[in-house]
Each structure stands twice: as structure tokens, then as C-alpha cells.
């Protein structure tokens, strides 16, 4: 009720500036229409000229990468571009959302968010069971609040179930777990309040420890083995409190501190039933599932985090997934949804959050609405050049992840097709034929920590001097083979080159330039060099 009032008030205020927009979605219009209406109203208000709509080729490559985590191959490209059906974009979106690669790609995105490239805990590099579980959530389109809750509830063990792995990385570090949970699931940064009261934000140090108290009794218990792999479960001790001693700068040896009980962020304290008088603290026994505590703080937290009584969960999810497709969050950075960090489109964010929750956190539905919008389908041509345009007037530019690069290189060079044709069982590494360690080292962390691309010197040393050439296959079925042995005209070959590598036909000047380049020497060397030049270029490196 309270939230509803806030929305009405916000709308009333903006009406003065915008005209008479009501951000509510009517029955007749979909969320995609509300998005376009709100974003376009902001252009008017801010006097912004948007980029033109993306052409089919631009849209095709973008949506493949965003939904399937890889670019389309030559045949898919040619078929889509030739398709005359006016509904072909919406149909492609539906098809990709049901592609197994959608689940894989979403699992990659969330796994990276939940664990980063270098997770702090032990054994968290062996989390294929967690990843499999995560993939399943997306394949079955399990509602977001349910699987997020399962991660935080951490039932079962890390091998047979998966979810407990999230807490394993924070073994004995409840403060770190608290920061991660609030940042990922609530879009709130509490880390400053860990050491001192925050000068600009409403939360104090005691609020941080009130949240930490929900997870401070957790422990990692080894409950068995599966081959070489340990199975871990998350145990919760029935007692134990965080003792709070005040700001870090005033710490003195010998301070005892006051116990801090569990309290929801800017919400209520949790009333705990008293422990029985003859209570003895539980010791977890290895190889036995840890017993459930008489009262679980952790489960209280799960219910609150994923429930609708907390003001952050839906907004954080709506904003995060929005940013995944549109580049910038409506609140940006996306994990800093504090009162001092205002949204660019407040009414729109309210609607997105309410609709996402109202559709029972159906992420597939939400993503379908996002990518069907005109806003998502803007060109990256023109515009200010900003990586993440603030008013969504042009498409954002994002670097391909290490996984997307490896997969896309394999697709466009025809390495994958040649592999299939050879009938041999391919290696299992998803980075093949490249060495995964290198790909991750040079392309695994393309951001500077605030979401800006930081293309370092090092990735080019790898691209220029490293083993990238191994993926430029010349085997039967590969692109190079088609270019060398095909009987098409040289113009047609250059088109094939561009349709394969960049999912668009070549321009006139490209046809000329490449044809002359190839004619100037041994064709195998020259085609190979042309492929290298294109797959190391910006147009390939980014999703734009």
C-alpha cells in the first residue's frame, strides 16, 4: 500500500514536466510499449536525438549474443536476412529464448556475478554442479525469486544439489556474505557501513551487522565425497551472536562489544524464541548432514529477501536485467540503489519492478519484453559514442565475454562446422581449440570494476602474437576452405567472409579492398590474414 502511494506521488510530480504520462501499463499495451513510451518521453524532455533503428543485421548479431551468448553462423545469418516475414524479429527472439544456449548463457552471466572470476573461497573453482543446477533453473524458467531463494536457503549439498556453493565461498566470512547478498539480490552497497556509519546513506554500521547476524551462524560442513570432490553442506548453529564494538578506527584491544541481533535492512528486528535452559551448542560432525537449528535466522532472511515486504528485491532484479540488455541501469551503477543515487527514469523503474513481481518473477517473459522493445532495437550508429548511453538513445557497446569470444570465434571461422563434419568427438573444453586459461586471463575481466570496458595492451599481445591462429581452421567445412575452394566470384567470396564473420554483407569499399588484398599474394595466406584482421577488430570484439 505504501509503495503504491509513493508511485502515485512520483507520477504526479513528473506530470508537470512530462505532460500527462501515466507510467502504468494499461491492459492493452505490453511492457515493451511502456518502455518505449517512457524512454522516448525522456528524449523529448532532454532534447535528445536518438540513433536510427537497428537494421536486421545489427539486430541479428546483437540478439544472438545477448540471448544465446554466441553469434549466428553463416547459414542462420543468410536465412534471417533473406526472410521477408515482418514478424521475423519477434519469432527469432522466441526461438532463441527456447534454445538451450539461452540457459547456458544466463547461467554464465549469473555464475560470474555470484562467484566472480576469482571466488574467494576454497573449492569454489569446482562448481560444475552449481552451474548445472543454475542452467536448469533457466532451462525450466524457474521464477527468479524461487531460485534466488534456493541459493540463499542452501539446502542439500554442493554436489547432489548445487546451491550451497554460494555460501561455501564465504566460509567464516559472514561480513563478506552480507555484502554479496545485499549487493547482488538487493542492489544495495553496504560495505562502507561495515567499518563506519555511512555519511550520505540511511544505513548505519549497526544495520550492516543486523544483516550480517542472519548469516553469522552458518558454517561449511563436509558431508561426503563424490570421487575427488568434497560435498559441502551449510550448517546453521542454533546460537551465537555478533559482538559489535563500534567504528573500526576506534577499535582497541580487549574490547568485548555488544551482541547484535538479526534485523532486516531498514526494517524490523527478528524476534527469536529463547533457547532452552539446558541448551548445548551443536558441533557439526563431518560426513553427517548438519541438523537444522530450532530457529533458523537464515530462513528468515530468505523469506524476507525474496518476499514482497522488502522494497529492494524486485527493483534490484528489474534494474539488473534491464542493464544486462540495455547497458546502463536505470539506477547506475546497478548495485548502488541508494537514496543518493537517483534513477534516470523513476516511473519506468517502478513499473518494471511491479510488473516483474506481478508476473511471478518470470525472467523469460521480462527479457522477451525488453528485447522486443524499440529501445533495445536501436542502432549503435550515430550517438554520443558513450559506451552506455544514459538515455538509451543508442545501443550500448559491450565487450564479448571470454566464453562468448571463444564460442563466436569457433562459429565464424567454421572451426565448429569442420569439427562436426570430421565426425571426430570434439574436445570438451568450451574454449577449444584455444587454451581456456589464456582466454580467461586475457579476456575474462574486461571491465574496470564500474562496468567500463578496459581494453588493455595484454589482450592485443595475445591476439597479435598468441595462438589465435589455431581457431582459423582450413579443414573441410571451414570458412577458409569455402573461400579457397569455392567457385563464386571474388565479390561473392568477400560477402561470404563478412556474412560469416560479422553477420552482415560487405560494403562496396570492403569488397574492393579485400578482393585486392587477396589477389595480391597467395590466397590461403591472404584469406587467413583477412580473417585474422576481422576477428580481432572492434566490430567483432563488441556487441553493439
Amino acid at each position, binding site marked *: 500500500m505504501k509503495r503504491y502511494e509513493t508511485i502515485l506521488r512520483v507520477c504526479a510530480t513528473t506530470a508537470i514536466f512530462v505532460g500527462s504520462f501515466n507510467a502504468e501499463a494499461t491492459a492493452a499495451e505490453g511492457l515493451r510499449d511502456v518502455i518505449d513510451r517512457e524512454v522516448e518521453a525522456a528524449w523529448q524532455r532532454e532534447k535528445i536525438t536518438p540513433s536510427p533503428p537497428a537494421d536486421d543485421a545489427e539486430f541479428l548479431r546483437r540478439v544472438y549474443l545477448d540471448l544465446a551468448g554466441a553469434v549466428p553462423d553463416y547459414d542462420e545469418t543468410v536465412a534471417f536476412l533473406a526472410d521477408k516475414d515482418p514478424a521475423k524479429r519477434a519469432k527469432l527472439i522466441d526461438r532463441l529464448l527456447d534454445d538451450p544456449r539461452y540457459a547456458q548463457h544466463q547461467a554464465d552471466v549469473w555464475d560470474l556475478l555470484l562467484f566472480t572470476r576469482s571466488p574467494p573461497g576454497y573449492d569454489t573453482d569446482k562448481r560444475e554442479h552449481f552451474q548445472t543446477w543454475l542452467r536448469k533453473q533457466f532451462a525450466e524458467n524457474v521464477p527468479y525469486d524461487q531460485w534466488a531463494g534456493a541459493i540463499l536457503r542452501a539446502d542439500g549439498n554442493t554436489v547432489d544439489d548445487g546451491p550451497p556453493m554460494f555460501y561455501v565461498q564465504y566460509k567464516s566470512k559472514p561480513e563478506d556474505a552480507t555484502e554479496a547478498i545485499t549487493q547482488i539480490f538487493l542492489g544495495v552497497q553496504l560495505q562502507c557501513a561495515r567499518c563506519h556509519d555511512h555519511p550520505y546513506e540511511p544505513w548505519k554500521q549497526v544495520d550492516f551487522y543486523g544483516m550480517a547476524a542472519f548469516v553469522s551462524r552458518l558454517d561449511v560442513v563436509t558431508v561426503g565425497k563424490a570421487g575427488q570432490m568434497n560435498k559441502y553442506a551449510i550448517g546453521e548453529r542454533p546460537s551465537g551472536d555478533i559482538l559489535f564494538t563500534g567504528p573500526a578506527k576506534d577499535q582497541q584491544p580487549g574490547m568485548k562489544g555488544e551482541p547484535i541481533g538479526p534485523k532486516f535492512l531498514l526494517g524490523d528486528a527478528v524476534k527469536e524464541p529463547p533457547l532452552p535452559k539446558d541448551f548445548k551448542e551443536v558441533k557439526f560432525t563431518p560426513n553427517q548432514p548438519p541438523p537444522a537449528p530450532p530457529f533458523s535466522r537464515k530462513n528468515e532472511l530468505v523469506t524476507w529477501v525474496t518476499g514482497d515486504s522488502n522494497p529492494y528485491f524486485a527493483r534490484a532484479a528489474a534494474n539488473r536485467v534491464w542493464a544486462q540488455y540495455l547497458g546502463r541501469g536505470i539506477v547506475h551503477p546497478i548495485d548502488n540503489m541508494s537514496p543518493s543515487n537517483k534513477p534516470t527514469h523513476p516511473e519506468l523503474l517502478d513499473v518494471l519492478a511491479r510488473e516483474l513481481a506481478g508476473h511471478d518473477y518470470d525472467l523469460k517473459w521480462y527479457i522477451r519484453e525488453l528485447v522486443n522493445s524499440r529501445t533495445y532495437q536501436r542502432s549503435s550508429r550515430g550517438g554520443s559514442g558513450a559506451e552506455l548511453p544514459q538515455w538509451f538513445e543508442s545501443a550500448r557497446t559491450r565487450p564479448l565475454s571470454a566464453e562468448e569470444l571463444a564460442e563466436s570465434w569457433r562459429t565464424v571461422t567454421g572451426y565448429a562446422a569442420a569439427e562436426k563434419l570430421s565426425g571426430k568427438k570434439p574436445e570438451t573444453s568450451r574454449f577449444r581449440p584455444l587454451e581456456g586459461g589464456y582466454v580467461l586471463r586475457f579476456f575474462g575481466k574486461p571491465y574496470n570494476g564500474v562496468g567500463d570496458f578496459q581494453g588493455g595492451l595484454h589482450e592485443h599481445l595475445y591476439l597479435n602474437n598468441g595462438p589465435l591462429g589455431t581457431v582459423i581452421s582450413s579443414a573441410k567445412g571451414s570458412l577458409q576452405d569455402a573461400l579457397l575452394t569455392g567457385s563464386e566470384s571474388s565479390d561473392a567470396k568477400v560477402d561470404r567472409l563478412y556474412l560469416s564473420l560479422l553477420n552482415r554483407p560487405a560494403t562496396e*569499399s570492403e569488397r574492393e579492398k579485400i578482393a585486392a588484398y587477396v589477389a595480391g599474394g597467395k590466397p590461403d595466406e591472404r584469406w587467413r590474414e583477412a580473417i585474422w584482421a576481422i576477428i580481432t577488430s572492434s566490430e567483432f570484439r563488441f556487441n553493439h
Partner: protein
Amino acid sequence: MHPQCPTHEHLSRRAMIKGTLATASGGLVMNWGGLTSAAGPVEEVKKRKKHCILLWMNGGASQFETFDMKPGRSTGGLFRPISTNVAGTQVCELMPKMAQKMDRIAVIRSMRTSEIDHPGGIYLMHTGYRPSATVRFPEVGAIVAKYHGTEQSDLPNFIKVSTQGDAGAGFLGPTYQPFGIGHRGDLPQFSTSQIKSDVELRRHNLRSFVESEFTRERANDPARMHREAYESARRLQGAQQAFKIDAEWEKHRELYGDSAFGRRCMLARRLVESGVPFIEVGQSSYDSHADNFSWHKGLVPPMEHAWAGLLTDLEQRGLLDDTLVVWTGEIGRTPRINNRAGRDHYVRNWSTALAGCGVKGGLVYGESDADGFDVKRDPVTEGDFFATIYQALGVDPTIENMAGSRPVPLAPFGAKVVESLLG
């Protein structure tokens, strides 16, 4: 009681043995051919800009085992003070070579900083700022690269040799990202092109065409960064001689001391000669929660030998007037010696040192109390420290750069330059 440190920051006996071995054999591991010096004439370097070499004591060297002796006190530890070439100033007996360089350096005995753990301290003592959720502050190396670097230079403007810290260029952007070199001064993997130069050139020209087609309709920032990074990776091919130091090392082994750290220091001098504005050279690892005295006995002598050699070498080549040499780690160590003969983290009072680039030699600034628990006189914060560094390098520490829409001064607001250190 002391904050938790990640295990990799801690010392193990095995790591110590490994470290000692690396030190002992540092001069033997290189396998590059003998080469003549690639250094340009000194005059030309001097006409150009100022330089900074940061000697990074990773883990936090103890002030009590270096510059702030407390003989006869319970906190004083095992080592004795020795006299230096500055009357009235004493240093630890582990530093005989630096004792004879005291007239060239200024020691600050009154550092008081605000991050007591390694990650925070490493960030703080590379940027001058505490870690923040919303602003990515640049390291001092990135700032020096920006104000004293040369665009389109063949060598990177910010080079880190075997060191710590990952704040990098922060909001200054990838142009000022550090270039990392291994602990033996070796170039990173894939630094060297295997392709014939004419093939490389035609391939490069074709690639430039491809890039220009994409950016024709897009004033695209990431694409620009991508292109610039490609260009610098390519230019590096022409500048690799600067890293080939075997022949020169043979001649300077004695001056710098026969250690891996000494070799790295000589590489830093050579990079200064080649025009690189900022080089950071690291030594690991001082985090002596246990066996503090054996650790320092193993680490300080090769370090101080190399440092003294570096100062001599820079001075002889006329480079010291334009090269600031900074000596610091992320934290100091506790006055109290714990029950494992270790010293824990301490930031209420510790020591750093500066030399060259107009810094007054022979000076000791600030003072600690009798047992080294607290600053008795003239405290220097991290902000003051960095403000002084920028001032010495001729860069106004109050200059602001934009982090998004927020102006951020080079040194934190309110930081004071320690004027009496500068000539």
C-alpha cells in the same frame, strides 16, 4: 586480534626459502643475448619529463628494522642501530649501504594512515584514497603516466615490475593502465611477434582499414580504446630492447647487489633512461606475523643494497634530479612483538622515505614516541604523502579529474604538501 589477511599475503617458511633462492640466483636466470644499451642520451631524457620509481615493500616492512630504531626499549627488537653519513641520524644495522646514502634521502618517521589490512592498504598506498564502492581511484603510476607520459610512446608509460595493487588506471581509463613485468624483469607472455615484419605490416594495414570502416559511423569509446591498446601492443615490438638487460646486468651486478630485486631496480633505471615516467618495483614479502627478525634479516639487506645502487646509478647518470624514488609498503608493523616473535599490522605510526627530484637529502621528518606507538610530532597522512609526491614531480596535487560527474583531486581534499621535505 589483528585483522584477517588472505593466506597468500602471509609468509610461510617454504615461501621464505623460495624467496631466498630466487634472490641468490636472480642474476643467473636470464637467458637473453648480450646487447648494447638502448638508452638514449641523458640530456634528451632530462629535457623531457620527470620520472618516478616506486620501491614497493609488499606486506609492509617494519619501521623498527629499518628507519625508526628504538634501542633499549621493549619494542626495539633484535637489531642494533648504526650511524649514517648524516650526523645524529641512525638506521638499522641491516642497512649499511643506505646508511651511507642518508644524505640523499628524506625519511618520514611519522606516517599515520587509515587502512590496516593488506588489500585496503595496498589500494590506499597506491592511490592515496581508501577503497570506495563508487569511485575507482587511479594509482599514482597512472597519474604520473598521464602528466609526464608521452603519447604514442613505444614503451608503456606505467610499468609495474613484480608488484602488487590492481587499482590500475581507475577512472583515468585504459590509456593509463599499467603494463606488468614478471619478477625477473621478463616481458609478459606473447609479447614478441613471430611474424615476418612485411607480413605484419600488410596485415596491420588491412586491420586498420577494417577498424576505420566500423568507426566511420560510430564515435565509439570502447572501440577507440580497443584500437589504442592494439597500437601500443604493436609499438611494443619496437621497444623490447629496453627489457633485455643481461649484458648490462653483468656490469652492474655489484653496484645493485646480486639479487632479483637488484636486477629489477636496474631495469627501472634503464626504463627511466628510455623515457618511461613511472616504474614500480616490488619486493615480497614483509608480512612477518611470525619470525619478524629472520624475515627482515633475509629481505632488507638485498633490498637496501639495490636501493643504494639505484640512487648511485641515477646520480652518476644525472637522472636523480628528475627522478623521484619513493620507498613504501602498504602498512607498518606493530611496536609490540607477539608471542611468535612477529610483528602484526600497524598504521598509527610507521616510516617511509623519498629521494631525488628536489627532495632534501639528509632529512628526518616527524618523530615517533619513545616506544614507537604513536606519532609524537608532525604526522603525515596518506593524503599528505601523495600530495608531496605530486608536488615533487611538478604536478599540482589539487588538480581535479572527473570520475563520471564528480571532480576528484589528485591527492585527497585537505591533504597538505610536506613543504619542508622539498628544496
